[in-house]
């Protein structure tokens, strides 16, 4: 067999095995890594050149097993079964060896060429676990390489062994199940009709038929013929009668015991050297009282840091833009040219000096929390509260991600098992103040009214999420299946990974948001120059002036707010024709609060709307938009009454 032109190599591993980190160190800097179960939800492709040889590498979401109903994990099955890869890189967390091996054994059954990366050897060592890769290699027949992906250790050897397998092939040794089970598997294997869509080999296909029929991953095996279906059903009943447990459980338990035996034979636990410090840290982080205090402190610190970093940066950066504008005003007079120049400066200056100072620290801190593994712990702590709004702790991570940007947060709801939970969580996420809205809140409310006002804004905002969640969950009665969430071991965030993640998001902000910001600002300048903005303002006047009590000129900003929220802020200054520092001369404190509240809630931004449509359907996207408008109106009205 000739090796294919560019071999496809896929990375398969359980969540938190360090798979994405390893992938990153091979594929450059494309996939995002983090320490929360199921964060790489979309798969990442990359073509790499290693020592003159090309490889197509694909990072897939983490999966616990090859029988799964979790939509994020099903991506893995589709890839494995329908796009036959040339090589699998199976990544195992050496510190939780026996569980990792369960997936490995399933992959050995699958029988594609494979190399195993025994990752996180340093964590295992700290735990006092000594693993012998060579021995696992002898028992499985696949190369096993010890790696520490975070430090790039072992990566070179892993690649060498991978090329070896690609060139020479390999023969895997799949351990047998107990005789009675193996006999039944063979029975199904024998009766597979000719032309049946075999995945990889007949034994694997037979095992999966027994294990999964009637279950999601059976779909990949095609419509089962009636004759075969009867055989499979008969075999399942026979296993169940003999073992007193459903067939899927028997096979899963067989593999579980194989894995435990394999782990026992190939690793030693040196007692007395167990990693106690991080157990102690965890005991505090998830303590019934201290845990919540720390959680509250983390969030307070989070916003204070962003404000403390962003505020002086903003003042520092905005100066030059203002003097530039003044200089231009003196030279260009008040013609069309100056209008355009002013629009350009407002757009660029807004992006650089107002948005970035808050955006940057927020993304950085978010990445730190993610990599640390704190999101799963927050999920544990907040589970009880989430039950009040009809959800559970697994939705906490998408919510927290929503503080960064709603769009990836909505995509990450795929980690939730039930459709109902996904819909409810996705609908609530647009109410979470994303970084763009945080920018507005910090730049307007915190800057002009003080940080305590901003805090109050957040408290009210979270209350609104809770109330809306409570209301919607009255309509979605179906019970939620309950929390099953892995708590990964704490990891010291690596600065390179955090910076990379921050950079990725800033890059996409600069690339996608800046052009819109600048174009929007220019368009507004032109509208202004030709006095066309009056028309829009007149149309919106009943809402803006009568409804909200805001200056007539602010009507156009709403239109731009639908494109991107932070645009409203810059447009606001542009529309009112003042500098950021002189804002208070044309608008009152009350109006600032009303404006912020209304802009924050009145509609999900365009990208959020689109992703809602894509992920949970048109109906819910419109429900979400409708609710946003209702909440924004009601809340602005309340604010006017109170202030």
């Amino acid at each position, binding site marked *: 067999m000739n090796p294919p032109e560019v071999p496809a190599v896929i990375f398969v591993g359980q969540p938190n095995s360090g798979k994405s980190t390893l992938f990153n160190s091979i594929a450059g800097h494309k996939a995002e890594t983090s320490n929360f179960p199921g964060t790489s939800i979309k798969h990442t492709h990359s073509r790499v050149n290693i020592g003159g040889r090309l490889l197509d590498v694909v990072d897939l979401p983490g999966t616990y097993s090859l029988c799964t109903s979790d939509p994020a994990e099903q991506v893995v099955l589709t890839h494995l079964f329908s796009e036959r890869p040339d090589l699998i890189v199976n990544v195992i967390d050496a510190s939780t060896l026996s*569980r990792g091996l369960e997936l490995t054994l399933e992959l050995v059954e699958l029988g594609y060429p494979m190399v195993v990366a025994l990752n996180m050897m340093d964590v295992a060592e700290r*735990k006092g676990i000594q693993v012998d890769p060579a021995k696992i290699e002898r028992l499985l027949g696949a190369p096993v390489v010890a790696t520490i992906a975070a430090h790039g250790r072992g990566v070179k050897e892993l690649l060498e062994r991978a090329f070896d397998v690609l060139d020479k092939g390999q023969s895997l040794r799949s351990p047998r199940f107990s005789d009675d089970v193996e006999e039944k598997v063979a029975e199904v294997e024998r009766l597979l009709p000719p032309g049946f869509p075999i995945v990889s080999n007949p034994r694997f296909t037979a095992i999966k038929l027994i294990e999964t029929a009637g*279950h999601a991953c059976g779909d990949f095996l095609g419509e089962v013929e009636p004759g075969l279906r009867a055989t499979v059903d008969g075999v399942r009943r026979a296993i169940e009668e003999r073992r007193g447990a459903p067939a899927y459980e028997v096979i899963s338990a067989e593999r579980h015991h194989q894995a435990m035996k394999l782990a026992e034979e190939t690793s030693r636990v040196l007692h007395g050297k167990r990693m106690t410090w991080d157990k102690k840290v965890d005991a505090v982080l*998830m303590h019934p009282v201290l845990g919540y205090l720390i959680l509250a402190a983390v969030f307070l610190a989070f916003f204070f840091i962003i404000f403390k970093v962003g505020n002086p940066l903003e003042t520092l950066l905005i100066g030059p833009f203002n003097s530039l504008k003044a200089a231009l005003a003196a030279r260009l007079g008040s013609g069309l040219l100056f209008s355009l120049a002013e629009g350009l400066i407002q757009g660029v200056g807004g992006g650089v000096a107002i948005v970035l100072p808050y955006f940057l620290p927020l993304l950085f801190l978010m990445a730190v929390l993610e990599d640390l593994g704190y999101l799963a712990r927050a999920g544990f*702590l907040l*589970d*009880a509260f989430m039950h009040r709004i009809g959800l559970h702790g697994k939705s906490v991570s998408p919510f927290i991600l929503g503080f960064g940007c709603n769009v990836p947060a909505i995509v990450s709801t795929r980690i939730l098992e039930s459709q109902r939970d996904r819909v409810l969580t996705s609908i609530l996420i647009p109410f979470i103040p994303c970084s763009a809205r945080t920018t507005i809140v910090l730049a307007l409310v915190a800057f002009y009214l003080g940080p305590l006002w901003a805090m109050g804004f957040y408290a009210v905002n979270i209350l609104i999420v809770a109330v809306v969640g409570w209301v919607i969950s009255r309509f979605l009665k179906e019970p939620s299946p*309950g929390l099953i*969430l892995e708590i990964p071991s704490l990891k010291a965030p690596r600065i390179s990974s955090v910076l990379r993640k921050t950079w990725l998001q800033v890059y996409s902000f600069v690339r996608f948001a800046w052009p819109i910001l600048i174009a929007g600002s220019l368009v507004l300048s032109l509208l202004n120059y030709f006095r066309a903005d009056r028309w829009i303002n007149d149309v919106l006047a009943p809402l803006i002036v009568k409804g909200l009590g805001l200056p007539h000129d602010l009507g156009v900003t709403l239109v731009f707010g639908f494109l991107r929220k932070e645009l409203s802020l810059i447009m606001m200054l542009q529309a009112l024709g003042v500098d950021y520092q002189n804002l208070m001369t044309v608008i009152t404190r009350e109006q600032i609060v009303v404006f912020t509240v209304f802009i924050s809630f009145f509609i999900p931004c365009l990208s959020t709307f689109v992703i809602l449509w894509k992920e949970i359907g048109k109906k819910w996207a419109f429900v979400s938009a409708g609710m946003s408008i209702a909440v924004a109106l009601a809340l602005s009205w309340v604010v006017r009454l109170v202030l």
Partner: protein
Amino acid sequence: MTLLDAPHGTPLRIVDLAGGESVRRRLMAMGFHKDDVVELDGKAIFRGPLLVRNCTSDTTIALGRGVAQKVLVEPVHEPS
């Protein structure tokens, strides 16, 4: 007894996983099977979840009370 009534910090053997197929499959995929030895590491307040550690693989999961109720355990007498 169920995990809910089990004592903290002592080894427990899983006697049975009750509950629906999807919950059982999920637990098994995460490495929690009948006959495994686990330890209860903590409980959140306000009827929050339980922290359960598998002693063999040293993995920890958080289980909501509804799920924990379906996990039947018995104490293990440690070999002295």
